[in-house]
C-alpha cells in the first residue's frame, strides 16, 4: 500500500517522506550546484514563485488560490510542516540572528532534507531539528533526487494552471504558429496538440499543467539535476539541449525611425519548442522587454544584465560598426546566460522571444496577462524592517559591494590606460615620419632611416589594434558585471523585504494567542515565499559565482593575450630591420 502510494505520488511528496524517516544518499555530483533551488521547491506549491513548477500538493492550510488536488493532500507532510511551523513560531520569539532566518527556511530543510551531504550554503537553509541550533552540512544541498524519480514526479492528472504563479503556461498561450486570436487566458484552455509533448517516459506524469516537461517543473530534483547538467556544460556540451545565438545586425530605415535588428537563432531538442530550429529578428527594445518580463515573472532569480540602453547621441554613433558589434556580443551573452539558467530558460516569455514571428502582437497580449498576475507576482515592497539578515546573504551583500567597487576601479584604470595609449600613439605618429624626413636628407643612411620610420609605423598600427580591442572587448564586459552586481543587490533587497514581511507577520501572529496551533495561512504563505526566494537566490548566486570566475578568467587572459600580441608584432617589426641597419653598401 505504501508502495503504491510511493509510486503514484508526485515526487516532492515522495521526498518529504523520504527525508523524514531516513537519511538520503546524495548522488555523486558536486553538491553545491543548484541546491537551494531544489530544496525549497519540493515543500509546497505555495507562494507565487514566478517560475514554472509542479503544482505539488499544497498545505491544507494554505489559502493558495490554486485548487488543491485532493489526492495529493498529504497529511503526513502537512503535519510535519505544521509542527515545524509551530516550532518556528516559538523560535521566532527567541529571535537569534541565525535562528530566525534559519527558522524561516529550516522547516523545509528539516522536513525532507536529512542527510544531505555537501556544502551547506550558509545559514538559511541549514536543516535542523531544533529551531535554535543551526547545523551546517545538513543543508538543502542534500536534496538530491535520483534521476528517475524526477521524471515521474509530475503532477498526475489534471494539468493545472496556477494563476498566481509565474508566467502564463504555454498551454494557455496562443501558439505562435496557430491562428492568432487573442484568446482569453482562462485556466482551462484545452491545449493545442502540438504543445503537449510528453517526453515519453511515462505519459501525463511527465508534463506539467502548463505543458512543460517535468524536467524543469519539479523544482527540487529536476532543476537541481538540470543545474548540474547545464552548469557542467563547459565540461560536456552534449547535455545541452538549447543553443541560442545573436548575430547578423541589420539596419532598418523607416519613416519614423531608424534602428538595428539582430538575428536570433535557436536550435533545440526541447519539448517546449515545436520546431528544432528558429530564426527571428529582434531589436534592442525586444531584449529590454524580455528582461523586464523575466524580472517580473521570476523575481526570485538573478536576471542577467543588458548592455546599456541609452547612448548619448552625438558622442557615440549608435550605428557605427564597433558600437553595433559590442552590443551584439552583449546581447548574445545575455541570451546565452538565460539559456544556461535551469529555470529562466524555460520561461514562457523567453520561449516566445525566441520563436514568435510577431513579437509585438504577443507583447500586447502580455499586457492583459500581467495585470492579473502582477499582484501575486509582485512582493510587498517596503514598509517592513528586516530584523536579521541571514549571514550568507549579508556576506553576499558585502561581497557585492566590495566587488563592484573593485570593478569600478579596474574600469577606471583600463580607461586611463587606453587614454594614455592613445596619447602615446599620437606622439608616435609624429615620431615615425621624422625619421623619414631625415632619410630624405641623407644618402647612405637613407634606407636605415626609412626602415626605422616604417618600423615605428607598424608599431603604431599594432598599438591602435590593442586599444581598439580593449575598448571593444574588455570594457563592455567589465561594465556588464558592474550592472550585474547592481541588479543582484536589488534582488537581495527584495529578498530582505520578503523576509521582513514574513517576520513582521509572524511576530504579529505570535502575539495573538488565539491562533495557536493553527498557523495562519497568510504567514505560511510568507514563509514559503521567503524560503523559496532564499533557495532560488542561493542557487543563482552559486551559479553566478562560478560563471563569474570563468568569465573573468577568460576576460583577463584575453587582456594578457592582446598585450602579448601587441608586443610580438612590435618585436617582429624591429627584428626585421636589424639586417637592414647592418647592411654595408657594396661600394665602399
Amino acid at each position: 500500500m505504501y508502495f503504491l502510494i510511493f509510486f503514484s505520488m508526485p515526487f516532492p511528496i515522495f521526498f518529504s517522506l523520504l527525508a523524514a524517516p531516513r537519511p538520503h544518499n546524495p548522488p555523486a555530483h558536486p553538491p553545491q550546484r543548484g541546491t537551494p533551488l531544489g530544496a525549497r521547491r519540493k515543500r509546497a506549491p505555495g507562494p507565487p514563485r514566478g517560475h514554472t513548477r509542479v503544482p505539488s500538493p499544497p498545505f491544507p492550510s494554505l489559502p493558495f488560490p490554486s485548487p488543491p488536488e485532493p489526492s495529493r493532500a498529504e497529511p503526513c507532510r502537512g503535519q510535519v510542516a505544521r509542527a515545524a511551523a509551530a516550532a518556528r513560531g516559538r523560535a521566532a520569539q527567541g529571535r537569534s540572528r541565525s535562528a530566525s532566518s534559519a527558522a524561516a527556511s529550516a522547516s523545509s530543510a528539516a522536513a525532507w532534507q536529512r542527510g544531505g551531504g555537501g556544502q551547506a550554503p550558509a545559514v538559511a537553509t541549514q536543516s535542523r531539528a531544533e529551531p535554535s541550533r543551526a547545523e551546517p552540512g545538513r543543508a538543502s544541498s542534500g536534496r538530491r533526487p535520483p534521476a528517475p524519480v524526477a521524471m515521474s514526479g509530475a503532477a498526475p492528472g489534471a494539468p493545472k494552471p496556477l494563476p498566481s504563479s509565474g508566467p502564463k503556461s504555454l498551454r494557455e498561450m496562443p501558439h505562435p504558429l496557430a491562428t492568432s486570436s487573442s484568446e482569453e487566458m482562462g485556466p482551462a484552455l484545452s491545449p493545442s496538440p502540438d504543445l503537449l509533448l510528453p517526453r515519453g517516459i511515462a505519459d501525463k506524469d511527465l508534463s506539467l499543467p502548463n505543458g512543460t516537461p517535468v524536467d524543469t517543473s519539479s523544482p527540487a530534483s529536476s532543476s537541481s539535476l538540470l543545474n548540474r547538467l547545464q552548469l557542467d556544460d563547459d565540461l560536456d556540451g552534449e547535455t545541452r539541449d538549447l543553443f541560442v545565438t545573436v548575430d547578423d545586425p541589420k539596419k532598418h530605415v523607416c519613416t519614423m525611425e531608424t534602428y538595428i535588428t539582430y538575428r536570433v537563432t535557436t536550435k533545440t531538442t526541447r519539448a517546449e519548442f515545436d520546431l528544432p530550429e528558429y530564426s527571428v529578428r529582434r531589436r534592442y527594445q525586444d531584449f529590454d522587454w524580455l528582461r523586464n518580463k523575466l524580472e517580473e515573472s521570476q523575481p526570485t532569480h538573478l536576471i542577467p544584465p543588458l548592455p546599456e540602453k541609452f547612448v548619448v547621441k552625438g558622442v557615440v554613433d549608435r550605428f557605427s560598426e564597433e558600437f553595433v558589434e559590442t552590443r551584439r556580443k552583449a546581447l548574445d551573452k545575455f541570451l546565452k546566460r538565460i539559456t544556461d539558467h535551469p529555470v529562466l530558460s524555460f520561461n514562457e516569455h523567453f520561449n516566445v522571444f525566441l520563436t514568435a514571428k510577431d513579437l509585438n502582437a504577443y507583447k500586447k497580449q502580455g499586457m492583459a496577462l500581467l495585470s492579473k498576475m502582477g499582484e501575486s507576482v509582485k512582493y510587498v515592497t517596503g514598509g517592513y524592517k528586516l530584523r536579521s539578515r541571514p549571514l550568507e546573504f549579508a556576506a553576499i551583500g558585502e561581497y557585492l559591494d566590495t566587488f563592484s567597487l573593485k570593478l569600478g576601479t579596474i574600469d577606471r584604470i583600463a580607461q586611463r590606460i587606453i587614454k594614455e595609449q592613445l596619447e602615446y600613439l599620437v606622439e608616435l605618429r609624429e615620431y615615425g615620419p621624422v625619421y623619414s624626413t631625415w632619410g630624405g636628407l641623407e644618402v647612405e643612411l637613407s634606407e636605415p632611416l626609412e626602415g626605422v620610420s616604417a618600423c615605428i609605423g607598424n608599431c603604431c598600427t599594432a598599438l591602435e589594434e590593442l586599444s581598439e580591442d580593449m575598448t571593444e572587448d574588455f570594457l563592455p564586459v567589465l561594465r556588464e558585471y558592474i550592472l550585474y552586481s547592481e541588479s543582484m543587490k536589488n534582488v537581495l533587497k527584495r529578498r530582505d523585504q520578503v523576509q521582513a514581511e514574513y517576520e513582521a507577520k509572524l511576530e504579529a501572529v505570535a502575539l495573538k494567542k488565539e491562533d495557536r496551533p493553527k498557523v495562519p495561512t497568510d504567514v505560511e504563505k510568507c514563509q514559503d515565499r521567503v524560503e523559496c526566494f532564499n533557495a532560488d537566490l542561493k542557487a543563482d548566486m552559486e551559479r553566478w559565482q562560478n560563471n563569474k570566475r570563468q568569465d573573468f578568467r577568460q576576460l583577463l587572459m584575453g587582456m594578457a593575450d592582446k598585450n602579448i600580441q601587441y608586443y610580438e608584432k612590435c618585436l617582429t617589426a624591429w627584428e626585421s630591420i636589424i639586417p637592414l641597419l647592418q647592411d654595408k653598401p657594396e661600394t665602399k
Partner: protein
Amino acid sequence: EPLIPMESSEAEPSESRPEEDGAAPGNCLAKKMEITVSEAEKRTGRNAMNMQETYTAYLIETRAVESQNEGQCSPVDSLWRRYSEFELLRNYLLVTYPHIVVPPLPEKRADFVWHKLSADNMDPDFVERRRIGLENFLLRVASHPVLCQDKIFYSFLTQEGGWKEMVNETGFQLKADSRLKALNATFRVKNPDKRFTELKHYSDELQSVISHLLRVRARVADRLYGVYKVHGNYGRVFSEWSAIEKEMGDGLQSAGHHMDVYAASIDDILEEEEHYADQLKEYLFYAEALRAVCRKHELMQYDLEMAAQDLTSKKQQCEELATGTMRTFSLKGMTSKLFGQETPEQREAKIKILEEQIQEGEEQLKSKNLEGRDFVKSAWADIERFKEQKNRDLKEALISYAVMQISMCKKGIQVWTNAKECFSKM
C-alpha cells in the same frame, strides 16, 4: 705652438695610412694614451667677480699605452677640469683649425627633457651623462688626425696649472672672426664653392630634423612612461580584489605582482634610451660645427672677392689717370674737371702709388687665392672624413636603438605571459 693649419699633407694622414673603418690613424694620441673622464665632483669657489659659486669638476685620467708590456701598468695621471675649461679648449680649436669639423661638447644646459628628467645642471643624472659626453669629446679630439697633435690639447690633458694662461697666450681670441663679419660675408658672397653651399643647407636641415626628432622623442618617452606606470594601479586593485575572492584570489594576487614589475620596468628602459638621445644630440651639435666650416669658407671667399674687387678698381683708376680718360664717373674726376686739373707731376705721383698698391694687391690676391684653395681642399678632406664617421656612428646608434626596442618588447611579452599564466590559474 700650434701647427700651421693649412698644411694639406698634415690634413690627410688617413690617406697615407689606410686604417680599417672607424679606427683613428695610428699616429694619433688616442692610440698612445688612455683617456677617461672618470669622476665628477661638486665644488664651490669664487668666480671672477669674487662671488661664491657652485660648479662641477671632472676628473681626467690619462695613462700612456705601452705597446710592449711586461705586465706593468704605467702610472695614471689625473687632473680636474670644469666645463668652462672644456669650452675654452674647444673655442681655441675652432679658431685655430677653422677647416676642421671640431667635435662638439655635450650640452651646457639640459635640453629636450621630458618630465621625469631634471633640467637642473646639478642633477646627478645630468652630471653623469655630461661626464660621459666630455669623455667622448676628448676621445674624439684625440682620435682626430690633425687635432690630436695639438700641444694645447695635450697640455689640457696633462698640465694642471697654468693651462689657461698658456691658451690665452696663443692670442687665439684675436684671430677669431667676428660674428658680424661672418654674417655680412654670408649675405654678400657672390661665388662660394657650390659644395659648401650645399653643405650649409644640409647642416641647417640636419639641425632642424634632429631637433624635431629629439623633441618628439622626449614626448614619446613621456607618454610611454605614463602607460607603464598606470598599469601599476592594476597591481594594487588586483591585490585588494583578491582579498574577497576564494578561488580567484591567488591568481589575481600574483598577476598583480607582475603588473607591478611591468610598471617598474619602464625606468630602466627610458634611462637606456637617454643614451640614444645623447648620441643624436652629438650630431645635432656636429651640424653646428659643419656650419662653422662653411661660414669660414664664405668669409674667406668674400675676403677674396673684396680684395679682387679692390684691385680691379685700383687698376681702373690707374688707367684713367694714365690715359686721362674717365671711364666711369667719379667725384674726383668731376671735381678735377671742374676745379682744374692736376699737374702732370701730381698725376705721376698718384700713378706711382697706385701701381705700388696694385702690385701689393696682386700679391695679396695671389696668396689669398692660394689660402682659399688650400682651405677648401683641407676642409673638404675633413668633411669627407666626418661624413664617414657620421654614417658609421648613426648606423650604430640606430642599431642600438632597435636593440633597445627589441629588448623592451621581449620584456613586455615576458611579463604579460607571466600574468596570463596567473590568470589561467584563477
